[in-house]
């Protein structure tokens, strides 16, 4: 706890924010207080959890933890995409496959060692980003199917399969899920420096080693998000159609 407590003097900076809010009548003092307490408790708890997890020797325990993260991510994604039939299953399959493929490749190519110190944070990034891509893709497909129902049914009526009829919607949804990551990857090092790399450099790591790891992270995220978005796209649109190429009821997303 001692290490974490040494961060407390920075509360002086929070006092500046509280004072500003008070003098300008912004009414944010209570919110700032809640934010400070919550962030301290949450980060401290996370730090101790990570310290415990990093001490795990068993690969099985690490895999179980990653599997738990996938389930939680799928649950979160499915809650977001409530109108998508079987959303939990679709998200779990897509996020799980993305995590398995990317982490498996990193291990197989010996890019990172098979230790909790690497697998848990990298897995967290993969799973978190894949979850966002899954949610975005499912919501976009749902919204577009609801909004473009006449076009989809016109295509079906002309003898298109459900896959053919939904093709333009699928393309738009996948682009929407992938473009932000592709663009941020393009501008890395010019417009912004990724937080992980900055953190490593501040912590005293060799800048080139920090860059190497950042490149691994970027490419890993590109791969995993693409896998998750494509799998979610291909699996989720099917749940709106019958096997006989009939479009069921589609509610607009929230």
């Amino acid at each position, binding site marked *: 706890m001692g290490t974490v407590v040494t961060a407390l003097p920075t509360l002086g900076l929070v006092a500046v924010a509280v004072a500003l809010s008070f003098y300008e009548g912004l009414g944010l003092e209570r919110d700032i207080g809640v934010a400070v307490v919550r962030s301290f408790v949450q980060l401290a708890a996370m730090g101790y959890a990570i310290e415990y997890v990093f001490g795990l020797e068993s690969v099985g325990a690490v895999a179980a933890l990653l599997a738990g993260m996938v389930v939680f991510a799928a649950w979160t994604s499915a809650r977001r995409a409530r109108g998508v039939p079987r959303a939990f299953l679709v998200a779990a399959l897509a996020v799980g496959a993305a995590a398995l493929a990317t982490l498996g490749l990193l291990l197989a190519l010996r890019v990172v060692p098979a230790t909790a110190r690497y697998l848990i944070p990298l897995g967290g990034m993969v799973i978190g980003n894949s979850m966002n891509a899954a949610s975005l893709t499912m919501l976009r497909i749902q919204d577009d199917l609801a909004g473009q129902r*006449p*076009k989809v*049914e*016109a*295509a*079906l*009526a*002309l*003898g*298109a*399969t459900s896959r*053919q009829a939904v093709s*333009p919607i699928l393309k738009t949804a996948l682009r929407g899920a992938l473009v932000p990551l592709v663009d941020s990857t393009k501008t890395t090092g010019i417009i912004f420096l990724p937080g992980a790399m900055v953190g490593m450099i501040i912590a005293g790591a060799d800048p080139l080693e920090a860059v190497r790891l950042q490149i691994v992270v970027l490419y890993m995220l590109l791969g995993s998000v693409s896998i998750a978005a494509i799998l979610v796209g291909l699996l989720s649109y099917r749940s709106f159609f*019958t096997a*006989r*190429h*009939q*479009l069921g*009821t589609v509610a607009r997303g929230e």
Partner: protein
Amino acid sequence: MGRPKIRVSGLRYAVGGVEILKGVDAQIPDGAITAVVGPSGAGKSTLLRAVNRLIEPSAGEIYLDGEPTGGMDLLKLRRRVGMVFQIPALFGASVEEAILYGARLAGLDADATRLLEMVGLDPSLAAREPETLSVGQQQRVSIARALTLEPEALLMDEPTSALDEAARGRVEDLTRELNARLGLTTVLVSHDLAQVGRIADHVILLAEGRSVGAWDRDGFFLGAGERARRLIAGKL
């Protein structure tokens, strides 16, 4: 009436626990224009969508040339029975692409110029973006799109309800002309009794998800159907 092109028998359809079709029996004569009329919520559009199997009936059967459609390859069925919707819903970068969509899926050769001429549009429109056409022109393009597959029957779901009077007249003339030239069996859902009087040969009346009766046009407007027509006219 000879052998019907389409026969509907005991058709029921429910969605979300609500029964929309509660037992429809109907016969669509071959080579004629048959109007399906009835008050709002009678199940007219639902019946049309069931014929094309865009929805799956809960019970009953629909026959095309005597063959049950329930067991057919649905993609082939939909190519045999074309459909025109209330909203044209064209897609593709050009009118030509929009017209040829179904033909390209089926691997068929089709001539967009000939089809545009067939629906009374200038072939020079082929290169235009579909959205730049008037709604009336778009609806005629959607009819051309349905014709690319040379369907045996054409289902038209209130095709003129979004059009102004002039455009409506052109679509009505086109419907009659296609029927006369191609002998195309046509099923027209309409809430406009005057339109039904202008172009339909036969009339089927639905109410509250059930078939109430069927007449030829004169029978509907002058004879046995008169009472039924007056009965629903206020609700149409």
